[in-house]
């Protein structure tokens, strides 16, 4: 039996005070085991982004406890949260958030700069991460604004891998991509999960995307609606398996 690496106990999050108080999360309890591929699904306004910020140590809950890798993260200061993010979390964003006019290789090795790793060592790890994210070697020294959206997202995935994170957190990773490149990105996540045992949490509002995960947690109005194993798991195709449509 694998260990629980994420444990959320009755997490509540409210913004504002007194009469203007808005309760976004109303008591969320769940746990995620190492090596799981979980999709957190819900419509906009359901609180899934707020949950993602708490899971990603970008924010702390108003009440409740959040254990990441056995450490209570829910009451840390901003500076301590930065340490947690640097050591344990890999982010993939909808808008990629790569540094423009900067090479792919440097973009990928950026998190390691803040870990004070020497350049040579950093680039070795970045190259391995790029290979794991199925990013073609020919483009390693291209600037990030010279490559396609699908490639950009694979650079972002490689960047999320370099610190060997406990958790990869992907926020609508296919939101800015067409269905074909979206499928390639989902394939990358699935292969990282299945072949390397990476724990992946995917936040999305599209049921189709969520169906690529092993387990789907449904959030609605700040509560967990359903939390069940996905029995109809879709397997995303690799780039070479998708037929060209000649358009």
């Amino acid at each position, binding site marked *: 039996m694998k260990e629980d690496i994420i444990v959320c106990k009755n997490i509540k999050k409210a913004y504002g005070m007194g009469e203007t108080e808005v309760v976004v999360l109303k008591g969320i309890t769940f746990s995620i085991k190492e090596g799981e591929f979980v999709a957190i699904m819900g419509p906009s306004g359901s609180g899934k982004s707020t949950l993602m910020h708490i899971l990603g140590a970008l924010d702390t809950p108003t009440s409740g406890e959040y254990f990441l890798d056995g450490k209570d993260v829910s009451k840390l200061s901003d500076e301590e949260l930065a340490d947690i993010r640097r050591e344990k979390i890999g982010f993939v*964003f909808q808008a990629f*958030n790569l540094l423009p*006019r900067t090479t792919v290789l440097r973009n990928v090795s950026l998190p390691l700069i803040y870990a004070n790793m020497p350049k040579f060592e950093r680039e070795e790890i970045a190259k391995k991460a790029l290979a794991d994210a199925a990013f073609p070697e020919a483009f390693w020294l291209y600037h990030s604004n010279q490559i396609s959206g699908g490639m950009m997202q694979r650079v972002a995935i490689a960047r999320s891998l370099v610190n060997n994170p406990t958790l990869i957190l992907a926020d609508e990773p296919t939101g800015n991509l067409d269905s074909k490149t979206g499928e390639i990105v989902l394939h990358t996540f699935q292969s990282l999960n299945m072949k390397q045992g990476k724990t992946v949490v995917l936040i999305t509002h599209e049921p189709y995307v969520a169906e690529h995960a092993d387990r789907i947690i449904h959030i609605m109005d700040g509560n967990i609606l359903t939390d069940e194993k996905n029995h109809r798991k879709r397997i995303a195709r690799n780039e070479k398996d998708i037929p060209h449509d000649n358009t």
Partner: protein
Amino acid sequence: MTTRDLFEETYSAVTVNKVRSGLTMLGIVIGIASVIALVAVGQGSQASIAASVDSLGANLVMVTPGAQATFGSGVRAAAGSAQTLTPDDATAIASLNNVEAVAPEISGRYQVVYQANNANTSVMGTTPAYEQVRNLQVADGDFFTDTDVTDSNLVAVIGPTVLQNLFAPSVNASATPDMAIGQQIRISGNIFTVIGVTVAKGGTGFSNQDDMIYVPLTADQHYLLGSSAYLTEVDVEASTQQAMTQVQNDITNLLLQRHNIANSQSPDFTVLNQASIVSTASSVTGTFTTLLAAIAAISLLVGGIGIMNMMLTTVTERTREIGLRKAIGAKKNDITLQFLAESVMLTFTGGLIGIVLGWLAAIAISLVTGVTTSVSIPYILLAFFVSAAIGIIFGYYPARRAAGLNPIEALRYE
């Protein structure tokens, strides 16, 4: 983040928008360059004034008669016109402690004639000690001797301007000392033989030593003035610079006693110390230098505000980048340091270019206008640190603003 990484990140951030970085830097370049150039002008003129006062003679104390005054409501005449300073006073001064040499002087303006040419010039009757006291050098021929003074010989040493005016008055020709030495000139009708020509010194701001004729004191008294009663000035050389104040005080006391003046507040003479002239002159030029530096500092301040403006724009433009950096684990200090490094790199580079340009400008100013300039190392170091400090001061607020951004909001920023 290691220093090397910080430098690389900063370099790439600054060079991304070269035109904007360049224009922002220009403010600092102009500020630093004008500080360097204007201070160089100020210090150069300070040095040249000090040098020309020094050329009057070393450790010089000058004694001049005071204003002629009568008791009651009599008419007061100009300072220096009183006939109170006598040759005996000069002899008495010579016996004071730490007095190296004493040169009594009588000066007046006379019409001077050589053949068909004439000039109106200053004639000074003095003793050979004058050569030493006033640091006078004879280029050709000789200065007159003590014998010439005792014998009241009619000999004259002329300045280069007098030489030119009397012996080659047309503009194109230039007179050589050979043309003058041994020739006879008439001063106020008396025939003097020219025995020497002095070295050209240029004006000192007090009098033009080149437009001058020197004759033995006694010859002046007997033939030109017709009286041996008074002197127009006594120049005294103190033995050391430290002794100047003491010599000045001793002369004052001696003359008060000799002239029977009880009230030391109203002497009939003035004793001027060369050091005090130098310090007055340099305090004037010092004020001038400070003023120039202050004006230049204003342009530096404006340059600094330009830096702050650009950094604030950069922080806004790169909000998402800052959000990302924070999301992947950058701490507040990492972000602060990164933006501070950018502004310091801009001001530091600007400062370096400014120093070079300011230096070149100082050289150009002295070539074009002839004003002496002196670029001093302390000011260059100061400019260096000031430019770095401007980067830190004006970069700090934008950098803290960047570091204080909430990563969630920064990532969402459009």
